[in-house]
């Protein structure tokens, strides 16, 4: 793969990662570690788990997620994240646009393979 493609993929990953985080929080609240492992388990999404924390911090500051401290069954309390109304709206908006975009790109790049 050429270098510019690597950079493009990194950018695409970076741009879409926050919506993957929002999606993971759509149905349930999760604490940081759980969230990060959830993302890292899917191949090709994140290379370094630690880089997700700056994103979480940013999302919280932008009001898309909020966090609360909750007791954990064992060990110290955990910071749980959940979607705000704004976060839910952002996720819905992205879903629509993403489908359109994905279908459009598929329309061209998948054509030769069929």
């Amino acid at each position, binding site marked *: 793969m050429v270098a510019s493609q690597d950079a493009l993929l990194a950018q695409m990953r970076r741009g879409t990662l926050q919506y993957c985080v929002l999606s993971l929080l759509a149905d349930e609240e999760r604490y940081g570690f759980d969230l990060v492992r959830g993302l890292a388990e899917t191949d090709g999404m994140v290379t370094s*788990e630690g*880089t997700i924390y*700056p994103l979480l911090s940013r999302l919280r500051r932008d009001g898309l997620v909020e966090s609360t401290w909750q007791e954990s069954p064992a060990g110290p309390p955990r910071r749980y994240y959940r979607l705000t109304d704004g976060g839910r709206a952002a996720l819905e908006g992205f879903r629509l646009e993403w489908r359109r975009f994905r279908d459009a790109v598929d329309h061209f790049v998948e054509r030769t393979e069929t």
Partner: protein
Amino acid sequence: MSSTADKLVEDYLKRLNAELRGLPRARRRELVDEISEHIVEARADLESENEAAIRTLLDRLGDPEEIAAEARERFGLAPRKVGWKEVGALIMLPIGGVILPVLGWFIGIVLLWVSDAWSTRDKLVGTLLFPGGLLLPVALGVLASESSGCGTVVTPQLSPELNNASNCPPPDGTGAWEVALVVMLILVPLVTTVYLARRMRRMSIATA
């Protein structure tokens, strides 16, 4: 074994904290807190806690430098461009006083304090640790060579045998102390300059 693990984790967090220097204090503390919580959770998840397992865990977390770069981007912090104030301060503090006695050093101090690239603590270090910069050792050196009459006055072509170290009186006890003092007076400003160059905040807030 657990103490080796603790040491690895401690080193990692220390490095992370250092890499995050320049971020707003609250952001930095929050990130370090969350990542140390992550490490606690991940360690609790390990089947057996040995050194290799901890290393793998930290590898998965990623290089502190990479995390800091991500944080800069997410928070809209641009890498600081080193400006004329910073360059000026770093040049004028050590040698300004030599080029332009006293005043040159003073210009360096003004530049150091008007720049926002250093913390107040670093500015105090820069101001108090080497008043005058290299002016003092240079002045002492000139005085010493003039008073002893050796060094600059001898022309090598005419009197090679006079132009070696034996021309100058070998340093006695006091001489050695003076040399040590001068070496220290030279080293301290240089070390402080290097310190200031390294302590420059590498990030500035580009956007809110």
